[in-house]
């Protein structure tokens, strides 16, 4: 792949929480249009890695180039770059005091100076896509977990990001709701959205990804196509991990 297609380039990323080193030096490139799944045991550092990509966690060392700009530089306006990096959380984090529609439109209106009518029309299209158009004027407390997570996804999409980060998007869902959320992510991936997904859904990761990263003890222990990683694992820690989860 050529240089021009690099979307995120991570160099020598380290993150310490006090004395504890969580990330111990990660070099990785996410290319445009790629769907990358990140797997690993709890506490391996995979969520921290994801959260460093939009600086929800401040890296202790190293640089992150997003579309060629070093976003670890304290002088960049990180808010502007975050608008291009969508993120979906384990616990949805929808805004409970805003209606479903306002959840989606608030940031485009505030930060992109989009007109209210335009933002709402766009939000309705997104809501139709996930089948929640009839809930537009409800408050999130009326939604199920799966519906909340779908709302969170389109809320991020409304900012027209160049990449979507998913942080264990189905871990907090009841089993019967996992599918509806994975369907939406899958659709996004098929439409060419660059996705980085931290997940425990191995079957899903295998099905959807171009590439799988195995993070263990703060470094990327193995990286490759889903077939390589799941069917021909080389690293002994990965073999051990897969034997537990598959």
């Amino acid at each position, binding site marked *: 792949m050529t240089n021009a297609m690099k979307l995120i380039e991570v160099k020598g990323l380290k993150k310490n929480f006090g004395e504890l080193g969580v990330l111990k030096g990660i070099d990785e490139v996410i290319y445009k249009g790629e769907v990358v799944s990140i797997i690993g045991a709890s506490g391996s550092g995979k969520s921290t890695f994801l959260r460093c990509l*939009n600086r*929800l966690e401040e890296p202790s060392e190293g640089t992150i180039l997003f579309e060629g700009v070093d976003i670890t530089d304290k002088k960049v306006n990180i*808010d*502007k*770059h*975050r*608008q*291009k*990096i*969508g*993120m979906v*959380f384990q*616990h949805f*984090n*929808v*805004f*409970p*005091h805003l209606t479903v529609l306002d959840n989606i439109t*608030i*940031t485009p209106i*505030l*930060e992109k100076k989009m007109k209210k009518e335009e933002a709402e029309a766009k939000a309705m299209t997104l809501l139709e896509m996930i089948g929640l158009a009839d809930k537009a004027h409800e*408050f999130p*407390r009326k939604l199920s977990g799966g519906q909340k997570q779908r709302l*969170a996804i389109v*809320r*991020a999409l409304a*900012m027209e990001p160049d990449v979507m*980060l998913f942080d264990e998007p189905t871990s907090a869902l009841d089993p019967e709701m996992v599918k509806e959320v994975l369907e939406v992510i899958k659709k996004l991936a098929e439409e060419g959205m660059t996705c980085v997904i931290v997940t425990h859904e191995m079957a899903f990761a295998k099905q959807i990804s171009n590439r799988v990263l195995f993070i263990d003890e703060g470094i990327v222990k193995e990286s490759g196509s889903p077939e390589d990683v799941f069917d021909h694992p080389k690293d002994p820690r990965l073999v051990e991990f897969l034997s537990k989860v598959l």
Partner: protein
Amino acid sequence: MYAKIWANLVLLVSKYYKQFFIGILGTLKISAISVIFGTLLGTLIAVGKLSKSKVLNSILNFYTDFIRGTPLLLQLFFFYLFFPDIIGVDWSKQTCILVALCINSSAYVSEIIRAGIQAVDSGQKEAAKSLGMSDRNMMIKIILPQAVKNILPAIGNELIMMVKETSLCSTFFLPDVMTTTKALQTSLYMTVEPLIIAGLIYFVLTSLLSKCVGLLEKRLSVSD
């Protein structure tokens, strides 16, 4: 003796109800002013406390710790006797006392607001940041509206506290229920009876306010 007290109570209520009424209005006015301006100032202090500046943080923390750690009566004396001279203004007694009460209230309210903001789920902050919202918009549109639910009832309770605390103003004869009580004691040579009525008044005032705060709490929790 009890018949005498009863007779005096009847006399106080029938003949001096107007003075008590003025006292009640005074108490409510002084408490409301203190809490309203205390809230305005307290909000600024709370925002300062939540900022990342260490210097600002420690100054403001000292401010609230100091005010919450010293008696209100002492503060009243300080603001009456020394404060105007220190900052070089010529305030009336009433202004000095009101400023002292507002400052006192601001320290408590700033803690209420800080705690209310911190009680908002941290995921809300992360979601707003991940969308690229500025700190200012995040605070105003996402965090504060949710924090209000925690903050408003607590400020209501602060008002209830103030209704009682302002009785200390009677040291400086500001018009409130306790000052009325003292005036009645000295001018009518009665002792216990005005106190009984003052006690009832304070109890009714705080009970009514508690009821209002309860209703407010109930209404705010509906939106969860």
